[in-house]
Every structure is written in structure tokens, then in C-alpha cells.
């Protein structure tokens, strides 16, 4: 029997109102462009493409939408947009045009519209009668101008509400893995956000807590804090045989996602027309391939344009990759030299793929994740990917485990074999101090971790981190870490004092710093 039948609805109404106030206003790196921040269900946060570790003849594609889902965000929890067209594109011949497009459309079914409850009792299966606010989807593939439906009316598992509502969540969510024809598996639903980054510091003038003392506005050094930790997202995952994707003759594929909405939306105040009416062609509102490109490479004035654009037109953004603002900021905010522009190394990493690894023949530069599907799956992936000699990792595709923030930081600083003069400490040790996801990934499809539940969950965990590779050996009162060929520096453990050692702030910031911290001065 449902709880609704046992309890009187008015008694629960107060609970619903209180719960609603718990929904955060939200702010994160995922909100990468002004317009898309107003449209979370269309806001694509990350894309992953990797050979499936337990099914190496397949590739798993994962794309996430709805950034920074507060797990306790009831009573109206998170859902895919019914009026949104979700897409993952595959370019298999390097011409910057999608050759294969996977599409998802969602529908919502409210079993009982006379209650505010998301569920009217414990949800013990994906088809549970008490699972009130349900979603289903169709997934199709478009090849050569022909759309083929791969699966219809596929069920989306519920949000992870809490121990009363979703007591055996992992088992229910597993029922959301659908096996389709042709060796394809599909999943769509809430997951833990697999992205990990020190958001709070990164967007505080490009702060890296482990390097706080070296910043132009120094702060006490600290461990990284996973700003996305404890938050969920909505994942779409598809596992596809490699043979279905590499029909262009090369084992290298380019992967990116797009989110589309119809051009016109009309809101009416009353009557049957009170539901929004969308019409017109579907147009791009979000686009994502390589992580962090639109977030930190594309400037504010062009971010919305980037989201609306196609990879085939990426020549317009070439200059921004050749001379990226974050590299200039690293140089300005830290005493770290970076390679001069124009940066052909970054063009290879972000736009063409690495020659000899994941660059397609005669590639047309465009922003997408490039995966060489012939690279063997490694049993022990290194989160630093290619920069650690693990050629199956980022930027050869992107695995869930890959530390794309640190890899890109080092790439921007020139700490790759492309620019040997800059591939040294501290450039090759840069990192945000967050080196792992806050939850373990699954060993089987869809791989993305089980979402946090709303009843009890942590946020911003400090210490789900490890030091990024130290150049020197550092001895503290607690731990010794050694790297070959390094010099030794000894220091005392840091304190929590607000004293800032060597606080000399670059005079270029004099016009934006209203009040200097105690003990600080501007450089002359």
C-alpha cells in the first residue's frame, strides 16, 4: 500500500514546502555560457568516450546534463527535458561533420496527478506503481540522412531520494540498463557527477590550492576541494560496437554532444494553452566535446555563439586555442612561464588529435573528443592519461577516471613533450589538488557512479584528493613523497593561520583589489 493511502496529503504538504527551499541556486563550472545557465535541462556538462573496459569491442559514450543537482532537491526532483533534443555525434572520417548521430527524446508520465509526491511509497522496481513521476525515452540513430529507432519507451530510473523512497536504489537503477539490438546498451538517468575539480578555487582567479602561496594574491596553501563532490547529474550512456562507429575507414572517431531546442517558445497565461508551445526547427543551445573549452578558452562574448555553432565552423575559434587566455593567466598569476603563442601543441590536443595517436588522416581542425578505438584497454588506467604514458586515456578519448583538469592545466603550461623546454617543474606538476572522483565508478555499464541520495550526503569533501606529482621531495612531519632526481626541501606542516607569507601582489591587480589583505603590499 502506498504511503499516500496511509497518510493524509495535507499533513505532508508542509514537508513539501520545506523541502523545496533546500534546492540550491547553484553555481559551477558546468554553467559554461550565459544563456545556457538559464536552461539546466539542456546544459550539457561533460562528454566521455572510451573503449569499454569489460567489453573492449565496444565504445561507451556518456554525456551528462543538468549541472550540480542537489540530491535533496525535492519535491520536484530532476528530470530530462521533454522538449529537448539530446544528441551525441560521431565524426568517423575527420571532416568535422557528424557521420553518425544518436538522439534521445524523453516523455513524462505522472501516474497520479493528484499528489505532490514524486513517489507515493517506496520505489522497489523501475515499474513500481508508487513511482509517480516517471520518464521514458526513445533513442534513435541517424546515418546518411535516415533515422532508425534503436529503442522505444525505455524506462528512466528514479532519482535517488533516500532510504524510505529508494531503499535498494542500485538494484532499481540497474533495471534502467536496456539491451537493444545490434549489441547496443542504453542507460539514461540520474548518476553521481563524475567530474571532479576544485571549482571554488579555480574560479577564484584561477586559484590552485596546492599552489596558493605562489599565486599573485597568495593564500595559505591547502588541499584541493572537490567542488562537484556530493552533487548529481543526469547521464545518457550508450555502449556501441566499435564496428558500428568506425565506418569511415579509420579507427579514430570524433565525439561531441549537442542539445537542441525548437526555435520558438510561446508562453500563455491561462487555459489549455498554458503549457509552453514550442515550434520551429531544432537549433543548438549547447555543445560540448573536449572538457573546459567553452568554459575557459572561449571568452564571455563568444560563449553563446560557440554553443550555437557547429564543429565544421571552428576555424572561427582557432585563434582562441592558439593563444588561450588561461595560459596567459597562468603566466600572469603565477611565476610560471608558458610557451609563446601561437600554440600548435594546443591545436593538436584540442582540435586535431595527437599525430600518431588519435589524429585522423587529413583532419579538419574542430573541437571534439578524438578516440583511437584501436588503442588497447589498460587494466590499470592512470588518471593523468597520455601525460603519464597511459595512451588509452585523455586526450585519447576521455574516461571517467581521467583527471582532465590537471592534464589541461599542464598542457596549457606547456608541460608536454610537444614543448620540452616547458615540460619541467612546476609546469609538469600543476594541478588543482583534486585527483579522484568522490565516489567509485561502477565496473560495468553505465560505469558512472550511483547518485548521492538526498537523505544524507556530503558536499565539497576535502581529502578525496592526492598531491599532484611533486618535482622535489617534500618532507613534512607526517609524510615523505619522493620523485626521482629531485632536490629536497624541508618545511614544517602548514598551519591554518591567516598569515600570508611573502604577500606581494602584482601591481596590475591594484585596480581590482579594493582592500589588501593584512600584511600584503603591491609590487612596485
Amino acid at each position: 500500500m502506498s504511503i499516500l493511502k496511509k497518510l493524509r496529503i495535507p499533513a505532508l504538504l508542509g514537508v513539501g514546502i520545506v523541502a523545496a527551499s533546500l534546492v540550491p541556486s547553484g553555481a559551477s563550472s558546468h554553467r559554461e555560457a550565459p544563456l545556457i545557465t538559464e536552461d539546466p535541462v539542456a546544459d550539457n556538462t561533460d562528454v566521455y568516450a572510451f573503449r569499454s573496459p569489460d567489453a573492449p569491442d565496444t565504445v561507451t559514450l556518456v554525456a551528462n546534463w543538468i549541472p550540480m543537482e542537489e540530491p535533496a532537491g525535492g519535491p520536484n526532483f530532476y528530470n530530462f527535458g521533454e522538449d529537448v533534443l539530446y544528441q551525441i555525434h560521431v565524426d568517423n572520417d575527420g571532416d568535422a561533420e557528424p557521420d553518425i548521430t544518436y538522439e534521445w527524446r524523453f516523455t513524462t508520465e505522472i501516474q497520479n496527478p493528484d499528489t505532490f509526491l514524486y513517489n507515493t511509497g517506496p520505489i522497489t522496481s523501475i515499474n513500481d506503481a508508487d513511482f509517480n513521476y516517471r520518464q521514458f525515452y526513445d533513442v534513435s540513430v541517424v546515418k546518411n540522412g535516415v533515422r532508425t529507432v534503436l529503442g522505444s519507451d525505455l524506462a528512466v530510473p528514479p532519482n535517488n531520494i533516500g532510504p524510505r523512497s529508494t531503499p535498494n536504489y542500485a538494484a532499481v537503477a540497474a533495471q534502467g540498463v536496456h539491451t537493444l539490438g545490434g549489441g547496443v546498451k542504453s542507460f539514461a538517468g540520474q548518476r553521481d557527477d563524475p567530474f571532479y575539480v576544485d571549482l571554488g578555487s579555480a574560479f577564484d582567479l584561477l586559484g590552485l590550492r596546492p599552489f596558493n602561496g605562489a599565486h599573485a594574491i597568495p593564500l595559505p596553501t591547502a588541499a584541493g576541494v572537490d567542488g562537484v563532490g556530493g552533487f548529481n547529474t543526469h547521464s545518457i550512456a550508450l555502449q556501441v560496437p566499435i564496428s558500428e562507429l568506425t565506418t569511415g575507414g579509420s579507427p579514430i572517431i570524433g565525439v561531441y554532444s549537442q542539445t537542441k531546442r525548437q526555435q520558438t517558445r510561446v508562453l500563455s497565461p491561462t487555459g489549455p494553452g498554458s503549457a509552453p508551445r514550442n515550434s520551429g526547427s531544432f537549433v543548438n543551445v549547447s555543445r560540448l566535446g573536449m572538457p573546459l573549452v567553452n568554459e575557459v578558452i572561449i571568452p564571455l562574448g563568444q560563449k553563446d555563439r560557440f554553443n550555437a555553432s557547429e564543429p565544421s565552423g571552428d576555424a572561427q575559434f582557432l585563434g582562441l586555442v592558439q593563444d588561450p587566455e588561461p595560459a596567459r593567466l597562468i603566466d600572469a598569476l603565477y611565476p610560471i612561464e608558458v610557451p609563446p603563442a601561437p600554440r600548435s601543441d594546443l591545436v593538436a590536443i584540442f582540435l586535431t588529435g595527437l599525430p600518431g595517436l588519435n589524429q585522423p588522416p587529413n583532419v579538419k581542425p574542430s573541437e571534439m573528443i578524438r578516440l583511437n578505438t584501436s588503442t588497447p584497454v589498460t587494466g590499470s588506467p592512470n588518471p593523468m592519461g597520455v601525460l603519464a604514458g597511459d595512451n588509452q586515456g585523455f586526450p585519447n578519448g576521455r574516461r571517467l577516471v581521467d583527471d582532465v583538469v590537471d592534464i589541461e592545466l599542464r598542457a596549457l603550461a606547456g608541460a608536454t613533450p610537444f614543448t620540452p623546454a616547458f615540460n619541467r617543474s612546476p609546469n609538469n606538476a600543476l594541478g588543482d589538488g583534486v585527483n579522484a572522483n568522490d565516489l567509485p565508478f561502477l565496473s560495468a555499464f553505465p560505469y558512472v557512479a550511483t547518485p548521492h541520495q538526498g537523505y544524507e550526503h556530503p558536499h565539497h569533501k576535502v581529502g578525496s584528493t592526492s598531491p599532484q606529482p611533486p618535482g622535489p621531495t617534500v618532507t613534512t612531519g607526517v609524510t615523505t613523497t619522493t620523485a626521482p632526481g629531485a632536490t629536497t626541501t624541508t618545511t614544517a606542516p602548514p598551519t591554518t593561520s591567516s598569515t600570508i607569507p611573502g604577500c606581494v601582489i602584482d601591481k596590475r591587480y591594484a585596480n581590482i583589489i579594493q582592500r589588501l589583505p593584512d600584511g600584503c603590499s603591491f609590487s612596485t
Partner: protein
Amino acid sequence: MGERSAGRLVRQGGVVAAGLALGIGGIAVFGNDDGPSYTPGTPSVTAFSFATSVPEGPARAAEVIPVLATEPADAAGAVTAFLQPLADGTPEQAYALLDEPSRKRFPTMAAWIRSQADRANPVTFEVGDVRPNRERPGAFEVDLTATHSPSLDATRGLVPGRSSSMWLVRREADAWRVSAEPLSFRPVLPAESAATDVVQAWVTLLAACEQSSAAQLQVRAGLYGPSTFVQAPCQQRGTWSAGQPVGLDSTPDPKAFLAAFGPEVGTWARLVPVQGPDSKFLAAVAPMGDTWRVMGVAVGSQ
């Protein structure tokens, strides 16, 4: 960097050394909690384990745009020459006939080919009247009737079994060129009275708890709208009857249909009142070729 004084460099060098030391030490101290295990990072490799150069291959071949064997003689001929390849499944043969605005919309052949998935291309067609377009000097409107392979999905919307449409043809550089999309497109609907018969048969099967047979009269297995309505006929003893079709504005909650198909759904969908012994609802029907099929259910106005 070049403008920085030597003193400042020294000062900052000290800062970065201290920062690095403090940072690493700090993490060593703070990182020891009960969080998940992690793999310590390693410095970037000094050399890639793959060759960072590839031999130059042949230059990427430019897209081949098929050349027209013969230029259409008039506006009607242009529409025929444009639509026949689409009916034949060779859209690349139609690309050269796109007018300038359409070529901007589909700048590459690849983009044009991809767009076919969203088009209601004809199976057969017949060109009708031709007349000047009043708003575009030198352009003509061409009437068309066509048959299509009927379908309904939330991405492409309704593809009717039959349609009447009007196409725009321009004169560009002494040649006739066609706009990619028609100026107007109107589905030809089956007789509305047939909708009542279909819904009556459907609800009768539901009342007999023959859901799988009833699904044969649906557009698809899953229906738009609250599923509880569909369960009622099997649960209530008595007679169920279907009434006369009405417009989509007869339900106060058309959200599911509008979200899936946009406001155009109001032009082709119909609602058929369904009355049972103890309850009632509206069955939404869509034209599928020359008949109707149930696509959803909705609550009726009180």
C-alpha cells in the same frame, strides 16, 4: 614575464618554492582521511610513446556536387527535378537545385544529406498550379500534392500519408532554383468519423483486457498522457463508448502533446471522448496514412 624585475623574480621564486612545498605538505597532511583511495599523480612524461608525426596523406577531396544534366525549363520543372531525387532516395542529386538561402542553410552536401532524416519527403507527387509570388519579384509558387510514408515521432513530428504543399522557386543566374522547404505544408487528414470507430474498437479491446491487441490500434506501445486512464476499461465492468472527435483544446492539460509535437499538433490531432461505467477520459488520435491511431490519453474538461 620579460618586464618583471630581477628582484621580483627572486621574490616570486621564493614564493613558488614555498608554495609548492606548503602545498604538497599540506595535501600530505590534509589528504589523510577516509575518502576513496586515489592514484597519486606522476610528472608529465618527457616523450610520447608514439610517433608524433604522421606521413602526409592525400589532400582531403572536396565535396562532389553532382552537376545537373539539364537545367529545368520552368518553375514546375524545377520542383519536379528537385523532388524526384528525394523520392528516389538520392538527395545528393537535388543539392544543385537548392536556392541561395537554402545553400546557406545547408552549406555542405553532408549537412544536406543529414537533414533528410527530418524531412517529409514524397513517395509520389503531382505538380499543380504555378503563379508569381507576390512578395518576391521574379519568384513563383508551385502547388503540389504528394503521398508519403506515414510516421509520427517527436523529432520529425507527423509525416502524413498525403499532403498538399506550396513550393517557392526563384530565378538565380538564369536558372530555376528551389527553396529547401515548402512555403506551406498541409496534411490531408482521414475522415474524422473514422476516428470514433478506431477509438471504439480500441477501448473495447481494453475493456476485454486485450492490451496487446489494443496496442495494434496505437501509434506506438507507449502513450502520451496519464497511463491510469488506460487501465480503467479493464478494471470496470460495463460498456465503454467513444464519442465524436473534438479539437485538442478540449483538454485542460495538453502539455504532453505540446511538449512532444509543438503547437502543430493542434492542426492534426483529435480528441475522442471515451465514456465508461464509472469514469471518462479523452483518447488522442493521430492520422496515420488513411486512418487514425491512438497516440495518447488526456483528462477532459469538467
